């Protein structure tokens, strides 16, 4: 059995100096909680997970992205204020904007020790220019196609990935379709088919007044 995540966090803090790792709780009844690792510590943490004799997480089972767009929370605040010399209660709507980010989630298991999963996640700085995360392909080769897929569908750029190209969409495609704010382009061209030509011929024949097909 693997140690508890709390114990693991404190052990990581003692073994790896100045590592930024924290626990992310999960409220689902069956699902385990996960660790959040800062991107700059990602590779160090990954090497630790793979090589630590108590963990030996040699198998990266699943790697995937999650999009968390900017959140706007509206809050109604009542305050007393002087309006035209009379104190009145004024209702104001306060908007707080939480900046969004992209998150990449890793599910690790150990084939050697047959335990797991250990789930860790990394967040990008924002959803625009700062979408860089360290690539895990040098640590687990199994990340290669999955990182390409996350790059393709979410637009996360994995630094030092050996071959970061789109995986599923075509090369000239520009957007990232799994993002929550993706708008489907309305540029599907209507292509005439052979059937349309047949219909046009029939229409022409019918309008010319000639009956029969012979």
């Amino acid at each position: 059995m693997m140690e508890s995540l709390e114990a693991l966090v404190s052990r990581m803090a003692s073994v790896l100096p100045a590592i930024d790792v924290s626990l992310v709780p999960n409220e689902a009844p069956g699902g385990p909680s996960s660790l959040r690792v800062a991107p700059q510590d990602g590779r160090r943490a990954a090497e630790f997970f793979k090589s630590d004799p108590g963990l030996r997480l040699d198998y990266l089972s699943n790697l995937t992205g999650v999009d968390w767009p900017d959140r706007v929370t509206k809050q109604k605040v009542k305050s007393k204020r002087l309006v035209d010399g009379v104190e009145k209660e004024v209702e104001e709507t306060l908007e707080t904007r939480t900046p969004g980010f992209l998150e990449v989630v890793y599910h690790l298991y150990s084939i050697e020790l047959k335990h797991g999963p250990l789930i860790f996640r990394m967040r990008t700085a924002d959803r625009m220019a700062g979408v860089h995360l360290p690539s895990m392909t040098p640590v687990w080769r199994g990340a290669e196609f999955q990182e390409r897929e996350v790059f393709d569908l979410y637009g996360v750029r994995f630094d030092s990935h050996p071959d970061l190209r789109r995986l599923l969409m075509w090369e000239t495609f520009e957007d990232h379709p799994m993002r929550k704010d993706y708008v489907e382009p309305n540029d599907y061209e209507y292509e005439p088919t052979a059937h349309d030509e047949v219909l046009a011929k029939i229409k022409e024949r019918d309008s010319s007044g000639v009956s029969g097909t012979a």
Partner: protein
Amino acid sequence: MSSSNLQLEAPLDPAFKVERRTATGRGDLLEVSMGPQHPSTHGVFRMDVVLDGERVTKLKPVFGYLHRNHEKIAENTTYLGSMPYTDRLDYFCSLTNNWAYALTVEKLAGLQPPERAEYIRVITAEFTRLQNHVCLIGFLLQDMGASGTPLMYAFREREAILDLFESLTGARMMCNYMRFGGCRVDLPSGWLDQASKVVDRFPRFLDEFDRLISGNEILAARTQGVGVLPRELAVSASVTGPVLRASGVNYDIRKVDKYGIYDRFSFRVPLGDHGDVYDRYMVRVLEMHESLAILKSALRDIPPGPIMDPKAKLRSFKPKAGEAYGRIESAKGELGFYVISDGSANPYRYRVRPPSLINLTVLEDMCVGHTVADAVIILGSIDIVLGEVDR
């Protein structure tokens, strides 16, 4: 017609050496795009290969011809709404796809299927494994040039299993049978007897196939030592399923996670020694024998009772916020689903971990140095289904 007009600079040697041509060319590399409409790529899959003569020096798989963004569609529908869509992932194994998805959502919502439903799941999953492996072996032999007969033998056996699926779920391939917390309908009367008959008859086919094929000289020559996948690379590249076990790694999720009620059955895990195409073939043959053993005891022990968790809700199903990752040993490898709920009726994030796609990570490593004809059977031995690779 006279040769007197022909000016020869030097007289020809009366004798000359025969130039020996080998499968390796003379350094002129040729880029070939194999697929997506190639019959041996098992679907709309493309491999950009660079050839030196007949030898593969570089191979890049190209995906996406069947991509329909299954995950996005699932995020825009209800939890149950994507259950029929999971049938279309690995369309040979719709029942195991159903199970993996149901298992994940059950983890998320805290549901527990009743005993009878668990037995039905094991029975249908093992039948699915049988018909998947039997087809794969047929296709593999077809790729090797054993045209027609082995494939028809395999499909004859698969037919009997598909008949069982049809009488249980109403569909032969797109079964859409599992529900969160159980199964959709109970077994029809006489189904267990019919299933037992199929299970009893199956070893005869396996033995016959084994006598005809497994010791065959051509099969051995074509598969032994071809497409070797070393153990360390297999683990590092997240390869799962029979391909991983053929490389000698003892990792079967039925044994490791013991999901469902797999801890009640005694079965062995066949392991390969060399990690070549032959081992991948044999691991699947032996896995079929183990599946039959599981089926025999499951069909004997299945108890009567309800098939749905009474807490399960079909309508307005909204699991609480949280996330879950569920995985099963499908016929291709580890099939995982990762679902994040935000408390609404639609999943916030829905991810399929496709074993076929991730097993293809090592395709280039296995093919380089072999001939094109070998690349075809190496691809066949990985066992991909493009519905799952491209999603």
